[in-house]
């Protein structure tokens, strides 16, 4: 509540200043601070990732003296509570009361969908973190860029890796029963089967399944491996119960980009060792930016940055680059948006550029859980460079097909 009141006072003060100086502000455009809004989740079940989002961006701003492109940045943080309705209200607040010029966030796909129309009508450049496929595909929002990944962008890669490098023949896919999990597993299935594998079982436990016992008992034991498309802490709970049911060793476990995130790993034990996952980031990445970012984050907060912290940090880098190319002028939205889409820079996740739909083309990493200095890390074992959300498919053909879902593409090899 104190936060809200403070924000309100800030907003009110800013509004007052705005009125008082409105006559002069046109001429002074270049010295005004850039008003950046962060939509995140600081309360409720998704708060772990949401707090990391704020910390990642905070760290970026601290490292750069609170400046982007030579101008001061006013960061206004809004807590959506992980609810689509609140996400929309908070976005309206940020835009209409706090007058933000650029948005970053929100965390969850359903939040992004809730603000989609509003962003279009208000024309607010938005650096999204959420993964929903169609936000940058069939219903691409011209005001979105996404530097993280679409749902299936990483799972395509893992499927290819499983089929061609690990030579798995039969696999099971399991994910939370939400669009994100369904899209991720559908992408996995498509690439795995097109490279000679067979998906013999698809399981979608409810997002809030109290327990995975009844799902683990159904697993077809003739599978070579199982792909986990879980989000949040579900991947870690599944792996634990998988071991408790004595399944360890009966089949290999591989995971998607949020199955064993750094934020989950710090609470896991030896049961996670050796598991392969795929993501566009790892705190272990050995590029010049990340070797500074990851230790600095660890020093500040006591744990490794993962998907969410890196997501907003990379967004900070991209926004800074785009602002530089438009001379720090955030008021011209069209120019800023065009600059965002033309960004081509080195970031903490490696090189980043965007396709015409606003989605990132960048490196995807296969990581293995290893123990290093006493803590578990996602050590990078292979890099797939320059991966697009369309994998190796032609974008036009890809977009002519239905969006990935539970039943698309159809599974023909279920046992």
């Amino acid at each position, binding site marked *: 509540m104190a936060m809200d009141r403070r924000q309100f006072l800030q907003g009110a003060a800013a509004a007052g200043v705005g009125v008082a100086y409105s006559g002069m502000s046109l001429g002074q455009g270049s010295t005004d601070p850039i008003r950046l809004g962060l939509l995140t989740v600081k*309360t*409720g*079940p*998704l*708060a*772990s*990732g*949401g*707090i990391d989002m704020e910390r990642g961006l905070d760290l970026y701003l601290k490292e750069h003296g609170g400046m982007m492109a030579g101008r001061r940045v006013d960061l206004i943080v809004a807590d959506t509570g992980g609810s689509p309705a609140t996400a929309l209200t908070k976005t309206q607040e940020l835009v209409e009361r706090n007058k933000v010029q650029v948005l970053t966030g929100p965390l969850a796909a359903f939040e992004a969908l809730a603000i989609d129309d509003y962003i279009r009508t208000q024309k607010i450049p938005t650096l999204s973190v959420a993964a929903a496929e169609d936000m940058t595909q069939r219903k691409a929002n011209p005001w979105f860029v996404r530097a993280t990944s679409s749902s299936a962008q990483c799972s395509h890669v893992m499927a290819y890796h499983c089929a061609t490098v690990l030579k798995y023949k039969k696999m099971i896919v399991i994910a939370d*029963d939400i669009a994100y999990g369904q899209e991720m597993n559908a992408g996995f299935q498509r690439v795995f089967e097109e490279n000679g594998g067979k998906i013999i079982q698809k*399981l*979608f*436990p*409810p997002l*809030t*399944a*109290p*327990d995975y*016992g*009844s*799902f683990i*008992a*159904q*697993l077809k*034991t003739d599978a070579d491996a199982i792909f986990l498309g879980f989000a*949040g*802490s579900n991947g*870690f*709970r599944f792996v*634990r*119960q998988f071991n*408790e*049911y*004595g399944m360890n060793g009966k089949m290999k476990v591989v995971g998607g980009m949020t199955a064993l995130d750094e*934020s*989950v790993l*710090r*609470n*896991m*034990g030896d049961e996670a060792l050796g598991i392969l996952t795929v993501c566009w980031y790892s705190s272990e990445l050995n590029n010049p930016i990340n070797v500074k970012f990851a230790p600095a984050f660890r020093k500040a907060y006591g744990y490794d940055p993962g998907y969410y912290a890196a997501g907003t940090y990379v967004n900070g880098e991209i926004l800074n680059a785009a602002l530089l190319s438009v001379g720090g002028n955030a008021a011209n939205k069209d120019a800023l948006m065009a600059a965002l889409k033309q960004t081509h820079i080195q970031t903490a996740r490696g090189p980043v550029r965007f396709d015409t739909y606003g989605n990132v083309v960048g490196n995807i990493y296969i990581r293995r859980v290893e123990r290093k200095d006493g803590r578990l890390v996602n050590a990078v074992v292979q890099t797939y460079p320059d991966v697009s959300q369309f994998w190796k498919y032609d974008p036009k053909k890809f977009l002519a097909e239905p969006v990935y879902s539970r039943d698309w593409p159809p599974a023909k090899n279920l046992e």
Partner: protein
Amino acid sequence: MQFWQIQTLNSFALGGLLFLLSSGFALIFGLMRIANLTHGALFMLGAYAAVSAMRAGFGLALAAVIAALSVAVVGGLIERLVLRRLSGNAQGQVLATLGLSFIASDFCLIVWGGDTIPIQTPAMFQAPLRFMGLIFPTYRLVVVGIAVVVGMVLYLLMERTRLGAMIRAGVDDMQMARAVGIRASALFTTVFCLGALLAGLGGAVGGPIFSAYPGLDSDMLSLALIVVILGGIGSLVGTFVASFIIGFIYTFGTALLPDLAYVILFLPMVIVIAFRPTGLFGTIRT
């Protein structure tokens, strides 16, 4: 794989957990007619209290006792300081308990953070049980055992002790119980503490299976509501039986018709409300 045997064991394990979760809710609802919406939060507090106790070096068994007692104290405070002032105001109580549950979950977020915190299964139960070719997690069977013991203790408490007789009298007719000299005030506090104690115990005992995480409260509250409505208000036996019924329905439902997991979970509740509003074993109409 031995699908049916394992799923049957899974059903019993989930049933046991559900009983630990919902017995306290049923107790409070039965006597005080308060739909205590903090129950899920108390369960979660139990899990987090166990986390802290285990970090301080206690084993799970002792941590569970500490968690249960501390949550009981919290329950007593809620009853004395908040609900007491709202007696007779059912809507006020529902709203107050709902508000308290939000406060409790943000309290947990501030104190323990947003990460899922695993609770270690005691070393002696970590290896899976192998029996006639079946492999099953040992700890889940222990949970069933704990649930049965707790059920028996509660049954004896209700049927064989003076406190139990007073509670039963209060459930049946509060005014008459008062007229014969039962001190409702003390009885309410005792029962609320007992209900909270059971929630805290459930959170700690269920910890190695569920882990402690933000959102555990709301996940658990809806399950407790289903069990209590199915079993019937004010009936301990009903709660016990309903826990295992839901355990079976949910386990086999998700295994055989995974697309309909939630429908299967809530459908029995809808049917019971429609055709037998008192629940399977209940005598009181809501």
